[in-house]
């Protein structure tokens, strides 16, 4: 739900015709291939979910916390309550109903979340950051729907950019429980869903080890080294025995993503976003 302006930072990939953000977005969309229903936060999750509808999963049912069930936007909504989300929905319901009957009611397969900070157990902070003893806490937007999305969806996908600022040894505040302190913690707390199953970044993908629930690097983007991911992670990152390489975007995926973005920003329609611009990456 935090707005995350798409950027080109975080990748030193060589000459290629897509950005690392684009690959992150495409990879996040792919993770929705088998889902029936997805609870979508605004920003990167919304980009990925809408891209999934345009590529791997045309039937994917998007549910936004503003009360739209089955939205089929033709452009990327700027906010969670853009008119097109309602106009194209199968049903528009009151906000309490979304949270009570649909989310808590166990109707949603996948919750898609961003984060300001994430720790090795995929716990999330979107509330406050500690800026040192001489400065007041830095204020983040807060919880939004995340605590109950993470608790009640069948599983949770996270998508955020990879840096030591975001991937931290210790959260300053636990807004939203991922896997708590290890396996069994979710069960102990009576959380129905499986919790975070993948953290998709602009460098690769982390997935929880079934035995320890700790996030493990299982996939890197082409041209990204494991060392680079380690360096961008604020804890001692565990790496899977076999680390896969993310498939580059297919021409179709890339075209669909760029078309969505070009159609984006309603009210300034057609104006391309500052980043995510088609063409070669600039650094």
């Amino acid at each position, binding site marked *: *739900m*935090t*707005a995350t*302006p798409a950027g080109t930072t975080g990748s030193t990939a060589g000459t290629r015709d897509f950005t690392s953000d684009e690959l992150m977005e495409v990879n996040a969309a792919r993770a929705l291939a088998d889902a029936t229903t997805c609870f979508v936060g*605004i*920003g990167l999750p919304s980009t990925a979910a809408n891209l999934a509808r345009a590529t791997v999963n045309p039937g994917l049912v998007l549910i936004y*916390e*503003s*009360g*739209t069930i089955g939205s089929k936007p033709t452009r990327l*909504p*700027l*906010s*969670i*309550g*853009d*008119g097109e*989300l*309602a*106009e194209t929905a199968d049903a*528009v319901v*009151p*906000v*309490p109903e*979304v*949270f*009570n009957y649909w*989310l*808590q009611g166990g109707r949603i397969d996948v919750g898609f979340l961003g984060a300001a900070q994430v720790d090795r157990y995929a*716990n999330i902070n979107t*509330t406050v950051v500690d800026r040192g003893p001489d400065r*007041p*806490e*830095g*204020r983040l*937007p*807060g*919880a*939004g*729907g*995340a*605590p*109950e999305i993470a*608790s*009640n969806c069948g599983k949770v996908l996270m998508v955020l950019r990879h840096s030591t600022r975001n991937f931290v040894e210790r959260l300053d*505040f*636990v*807004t*939203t*429980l991922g896997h*708590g302190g290890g396996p069994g*913690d979710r069960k102990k*707390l*009576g*959380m*129905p869903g499986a919790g975070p199953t993948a953290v998709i970044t602009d460098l690769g993908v982390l997935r929880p080890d079934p035995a320890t629930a700790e996030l493990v690097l299982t996939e890197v983007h082409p041209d990204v080294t494991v060392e680079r991911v380690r360096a961008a992670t604020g804890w001692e990152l565990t790496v899977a025995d076999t680390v896969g390489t993310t498939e580059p975007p297919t021409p179709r995926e890339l075209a669909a993503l760029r078309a969505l973005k070009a159609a984006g*920003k*309603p*009210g*300034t329609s057609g104006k391309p976003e500052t980043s995510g611009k088609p063409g070669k990456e600039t650094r």
Partner: protein
Amino acid sequence: MADIRSLQDAVADLVHDGDTVAMEGFTHLIPYAAAHEVIRQGITDLTLVRMTPDVIYDQLIGAGLVRKLVFSWGGNPGVGSLHRFRDAVENGWPRPLELDEHSHAGMANRYVAGASKLPFAVLRGYRGSDIPTRTDTVSTVVCPFTGEELAAVAALNPDVTVIHAQQADRAGNVQMWGLTGVQKEAALAADRVLVTVEEVVEELRPRPGGIVLPTWVVDAVSVVPSGAHPSYATGYSTRDNDFYQAWDPIARDREAFLTWIEEHVRDSEGALTR
């Protein structure tokens, strides 16, 4: 029964210093014009309630009228931070801002309890979260049938709820449609209800997705075309996303903010036509 009256009179009558005020609208139908009238009248020491305090509350907070904020997500959707909100929380400018912070599910259920005149609502929420350490309006209850421990959230019953709707009839019955958010709950939970509308019509034609608030649960209706701008009213306008993006640099700077409020709110047409 709702009286149809000027926004200035309605705000002066219904919103008082020290009140707990909910101005709701989930992106859609946010009652900006009424908030600007509150700023013009300098009604202060408010406790503001809103699931998603966006630019409307950034303006009220920056204007120094807000003592406390009850909320679940404070940002400029799709753009970034609410800088006036952050400045108040982090630096106490122009005054300190007390927070009562929840999740969306918790806030929605607090309104449901308020509308139901129950003291609390139950949800399966806040599990493993630090949020309950920072609020005294989350607790727990145990299910008497299963023994499961669940979250309890305290009811929200604002002194005043202010919302924007598309239409009212002459009797003061109100209809809104499109994304209707938590407006019905926020209105029915409140002691007093003020509704700004795009227009008054002879007859409210039932609409798909329409919600009707009968006149006898509304205190005042004020006709304020475009009263939700830069938010929008389905059937009347679209969201002014450019404004939301333009707000970011204005709100980042205290002086720029004050100048904007002076020019666009305090000296605005709304102020002159009082």
